[in-house]
């Protein structure tokens, strides 16, 4: 039986989907987290602890494990563990992305450098030292611009500035965020920010799978809500895209160029692009699959989940079809309207009764301290819909969301 190592941070939403997929495939599953599981002593052959901040150290630990219990595939589920998975795969001699490629996809500065070196359309950028003269940096900046931490995910710490005063305020806010105890950044990511050109236009997300260096588009999502700042909270994703076919083709081409520029060759990619009258611009390419519970919108072939598809590819098992189901689908990440403690959720049954709605998953727990963007990184939950058209999916998601109310103190 093939043995699969899943790298599952204790705070990821992705655990259930990947564990279910591994069980459906019948593989011998080994789960690694950054903190010990309570059953690790009873099941050391299935539960291991790895330091995800030290990819080489994690690779050395897994190499020892591998001597007694050989591993055929390793899969990370988020930005951090994608780098660790690459390091482990390299150590074990498994086919995977080069470590440098996974690291470049994890670091927005290195990503920008590689994209520009390869002439892939991407926003102009510069670095801002957190220890330098911020007022001077603000005077030298071009506006509007977007300030970003180098390695945080989920739009955390991403702030638009339209003038020097907003620039200075944004840098101070991000600096305070990076100093929070729940934020782990090191090296350049602790010392500098990225200031990049704001690209107006529609935003899309491309979910893809790289197989031997070739990008296969699994789904292209429209993001119909404008993402113009000052913060960049994602809400609705709908697939298939309603953009013209030639624009979609150009998005796929540019994403493939970006993957090549980063030297990504294997496994899932989640790319975010802006589209204006000049064409697509790569905002990010992550060497992982879509975050949160959003993958529930996707089914392939005769019902395969995205996670099954990813695991099959990692194991080098046959994949019958990469074709997404024909029915349009979508998800709404329920935004946090304000800071405070969640006391009650109302209207969930009414939201689930909206035609086209598959599921309303409230993932924030009662009494949870809610922190909105840019400091926060979570959502209240997710709404899923399927309908006859992408427009109907979007309408269903908005109607369902309007049924929900949250008591926050």
């Amino acid at each position: 039986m093939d043995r699969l190592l899943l790298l599952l941070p204790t705070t990821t939403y992705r655990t259930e989907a990947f564990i279910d997929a591994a069980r459906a495939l019948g593989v011998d599953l080994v789960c690694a987290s950054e903190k010990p599981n309570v059953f690790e002593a009873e099941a050391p052959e299935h539960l291991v602890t790895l330091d995800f901040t030290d990819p080489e150290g994690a690779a050395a630990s897994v190499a020892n494990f591998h001597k007694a219990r050989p591993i055929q595939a390793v899969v990370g589920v988020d930005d951090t563990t994608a780098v660790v998975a690459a390091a482990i795969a390299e150590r074990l001699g498994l086919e995977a992305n080069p470590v440098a490629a996974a690291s470049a996809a994890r670091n927005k500065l290195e990503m920008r450098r590689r994209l520009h070196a390869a002439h892939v359309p991407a926003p102009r950028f510069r670095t801002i030292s957190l220890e330098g003269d911020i007022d001077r940096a603000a005077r030298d900046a071009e506006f509007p611009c977007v300030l970003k931490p180098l390695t945080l995910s989920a739009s955390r710490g991403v702030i638009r500035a339209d003038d020097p005063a907003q620039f200075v305020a944004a840098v101070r806010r991000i600096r305070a965020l990076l100093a929070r105890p729940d934020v782990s950044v090191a090296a350049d990511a602790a010392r500098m920010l990225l200031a990049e050109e704001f690209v107006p236009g529609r935003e899309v997300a491309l979910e893809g799978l790289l197989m031997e260096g070739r990008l296969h588009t699994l789904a292209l999502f429209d993001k119909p809500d404008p993402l113009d700042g000052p913060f960049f909270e994602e809400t609705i994703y709908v697939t298939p895209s309603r953009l013209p076919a030639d624009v979609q083709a150009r998005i796929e081409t540019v994403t493939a160029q970006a993957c090549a520029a980063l030297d990504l060759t294997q496994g899932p990619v989640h790319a975010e692009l802006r589209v204006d009258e000049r064409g697509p611009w790569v905002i990010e390419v992550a060497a992982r699959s879509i975050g949160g519970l959003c993958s529930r919108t996707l089914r392939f072939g005769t019902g395969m989940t995205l996670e099954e598809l990813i695991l099959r590819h990692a194991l080098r098992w046959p994949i019958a079809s990469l074709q997404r189901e024909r029915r349009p689908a979508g998800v709404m990440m329920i935004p946090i309207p304000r800071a405070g403690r969640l006391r009650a959720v109302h209207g969930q049954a009414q939201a689930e009764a909206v035609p086209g709605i598959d599921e309303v998953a409230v993932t924030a727990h009662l009494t949870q301290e809610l922190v909105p963007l840019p400091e926060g990184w979570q959502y209240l939950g997710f709404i899923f819909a399927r309908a006859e058209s992408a427009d109907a999916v979007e309408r269903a998601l908005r109607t369902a969301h309007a049924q929900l109310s949250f008591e926050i103190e």
Partner: protein
Amino acid sequence: MSVEELRSKVQDLIDNMINPAVAGHGGYVELIDVQDNRVYLQMGGGCQGCGAADITLKSGIERLIKEEIPEIHEVLDTTDHASGANPYYTAGKA
């Protein structure tokens, strides 16, 4: 083995091996039922809504129960994780 015997053996495991382990994270597990060689559980305390609950259930609890009681084919979680008020780990987007 009768259903009553299976239920009793599962309850013993929960009392003597599973709950002492998850108690370290403020959690507990309750046996809801045993039917058709399937065990139905609910997780509470720190386990309810925990980001690592699926790992604990599938790679810890289920494996332990199946090793000790081979008649059990599957362990199913009936917990309403969204209602967990004090999960040990809280999930985030990525």
